[in-house]
């Protein structure tokens, strides 16, 4: 089965040390309860003993030389210590077993790191720069603007009803289409009831549903209701990209060899990426509905695994200066970080002008964000952007 040889310590000594404390050598040969560990050469004859044999080939070499006593262990405290010793041995074995399995498994035990391949072009997707935009004519640009349409897939649950309601009242109004997918229905708000408690299964169903009902929409944005998004900046990012190419964008993290888009800062999928995903979701080998591994990966990693099979890789969404556009933290949290890192240049060193998402903001903060993003500005600063996005109908807070 598996090989314990690489272990630095001699497991046998660990297992077999001082058995006489619990089971003093008597006429009957002690049966080793550790025989279930499995065959390997370190095991002694003791493991192959069974009850009832009159003769014992009893390997005394591992036993400490102690006086043989016919007396049972004197006090229960000592017995508890002895049992505790077994327990500790069990714990250590269990821990080592798990460690070994994780080494064998598909994911290595390396610490997660932000993908640092700043030279590998295909891992980063940058928003168009000013130069790139001026090269395109105004007509072209407005066409792009009209064509980029985003379908928002917003995952909700009744237990976060306030966030759900806030998403309905705030940023989701800027999606060309916003559909809420819930684990169970709520009387208060409308949603597609997936009737599913498992996070990964729910995400699969939602993505399938969104694909089947895509209509003309070619860009898909998946977010939880606890995320705040600025859809215009998402459109800006994908403006000149072809949705018939596979794109899988967001804030990219690395877990061992796997690069995946973090869920809580939003996931962007082009039509092609979603199409490939929906097809591979049918493959129970590559992309099982209930995780096959001994432990379950978070659904954002599962998504990355499935997409990888179809040749779609995670790419980090950045502005023209390389600043990340998808944030797993709130504005306040990022500012606080920047105050420590860049005390003389707090705001400039903080966050992108055209940031797409923030996470960890309260419902009230999201309402303030609507004002801060869509209304608050200094008089006299006019940006002559190359495209125009109109405000949504029937909304008063933007």
């Amino acid at each position, binding site marked *: 089965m598996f090989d314990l040889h690489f272990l630095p310590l001699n497991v046998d000594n660990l297992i077999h040390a001082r058995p006489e404390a619990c089971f003093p050598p008597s006429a009957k040969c002690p049966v080793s309860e550790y025989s279930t560990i499995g065959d390997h050469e370190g095991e002694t004859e003791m493991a192959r003993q069974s009850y009832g044999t009159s003769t014992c080939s009893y390997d005394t070499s591992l036993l400490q030389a102690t006086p043989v006593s016919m007396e049972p262990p004197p006090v229960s405290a000592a017995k508890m210590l002895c049992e505790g010793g077994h327990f500790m041995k069990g714990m250590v074995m269990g821990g080592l077993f798990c460690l070994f399995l994780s080494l064998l498994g598909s994911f290595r035990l390396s610490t997660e790191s932000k993908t640092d391949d700043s030279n590998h072009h295909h891992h980063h997707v940058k928003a168009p720069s000013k130069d790139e935009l001026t090269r395109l004519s105004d007509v072209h640009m407005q066409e792009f603007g009209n064509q980029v349409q985003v379908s928002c897939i917003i995952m909700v649950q009744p237990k976060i009803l306030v966030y759900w309601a806030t998403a309905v009242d705030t940023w989701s109004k800027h999606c060309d289409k916003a559909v809420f997918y819930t684990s169970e229905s709520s009387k208060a708000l409308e949603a597609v009831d997936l009737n599913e408690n498992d996070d990964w299964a729910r995400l699969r169903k939602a993505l399938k549903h969104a694909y089947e009902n895509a209509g003309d929409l070619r860009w898909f944005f998946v977010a939880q209701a606890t995320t705040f998004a600025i859809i215009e900046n998402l459109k800006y990012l994908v403006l000149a990209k072809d949705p018939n190419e596979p794109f899988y964008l967001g804030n990219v993290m690395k877990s061992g060899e796997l690069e995946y888009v973090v869920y809580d800062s939003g996931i962007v999928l082009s039509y092609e990426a979603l199409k490939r995903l929906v097809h591979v979701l049918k493959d129970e080998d590559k992309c099982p509905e209930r995780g096959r591994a001994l432990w379950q990966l978070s659904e954002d990693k599962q998504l990355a695994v499935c997409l990888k099979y179809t040749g779609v890789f995670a790419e980090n969404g950045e502005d023209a200066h390389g600043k990340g556009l998808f944030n797993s933290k709130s504005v306040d949290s990022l500012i606080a970080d920047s105050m420590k890192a860049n005390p003389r240049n707090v705001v400039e060193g903080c966050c992108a002008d055209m940031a797409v998402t923030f996470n960890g903001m309260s419902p009230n903060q999201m309402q303030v964000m609507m004002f801060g993003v869509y209304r608050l500005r200094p008089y006299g600063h006019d940006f002559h952007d190359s495209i125009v*996005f109109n405000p949504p109908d029937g909304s008063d807070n933007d």
Partner: protein
Amino acid sequence: MRVNTSRLFFNTGLIIGFLSSFFLLDSNFSTQQATYWNAKHDVRHHGHTVENKSSAANSSGSTRILCWIMTGPNYLESRTKHIRNTWAKRCNKVLYMSSVKTDFPTVGLNVSEGRENLYWKTIRAFQYIHRHHLDEADWFLKADDDTFVVVENLRYTLSRYDPLKPLYLGRRFTPFIRQGYMSGGAGYVLSKEALRRFVEGFDTGKCTHFTTIEDIAVGQCMETMKVEPADSRDIKGRQTFHPYPPDHYLVRQASRPRPWYLIYDHYPPVEGPGCCSDFVVSFHYIYAVQLYALEYLTYHLRPYGYKYRFNPDEKTEFQTTTKST
């Protein structure tokens, strides 16, 4: 029996050891994140698409504003420093008023610190400005060291008024003074003529230190000296000066008894999105992190290509008024 319990203990230990290692490893995977920004990140000036700063916002020409910040030695590091890093530089002239002179730089007013001395500090501050800086500005703003001000929007709000007339603006409150008074926390601004009259009032004894409550006291002196409170709201009637942070006004509230700061309002208060002008002038009770966050929201973060709903320049010019309604 002994054998069985030992086996039980061992197996239990095995399971627990396995599970604890598993959860330890799993949490290692999911919670560990690299630091968001590290020192080697290039801090470059962000370039936006062609930005047009109109002359009114930028020049020291037409609407010159002198800002004075009411502060003290205890707050220079925790509050005033951040104001100096953010909005203060947009004033044509900024003075930090304290009890003592320092290299911050602060002006020493020779008044002790403390809430009961706020009015003395205010009087001395205006007298100082009148003596040394009267010709350097047309309007004189008083702000606290926990106020966030969008100076461009203040200029815009003031652009329809004549600084040679006796006017002052802010968040107008009704009680205590017949013509009302301006909330101290939200900041208030005096025209050049209003400043002259304030100082003259103290010179002649018409205005006295009759209370320590600074904003009410200033309001009384303004009334005595026939300085008029002008309307600071935008053309849609939305407030620009705010004595509390944005979440106190913008958040849609379930109906409840009105808080005091709305009951005091001279103009009918509005809660929810209609509370506040797009061209906000001030918020109060804003400290370090929120100050930089507001700076980010005002001057940096924006929705690309978004056509703002409120575009006053596209409409016909609003009428200039010097009298408040």
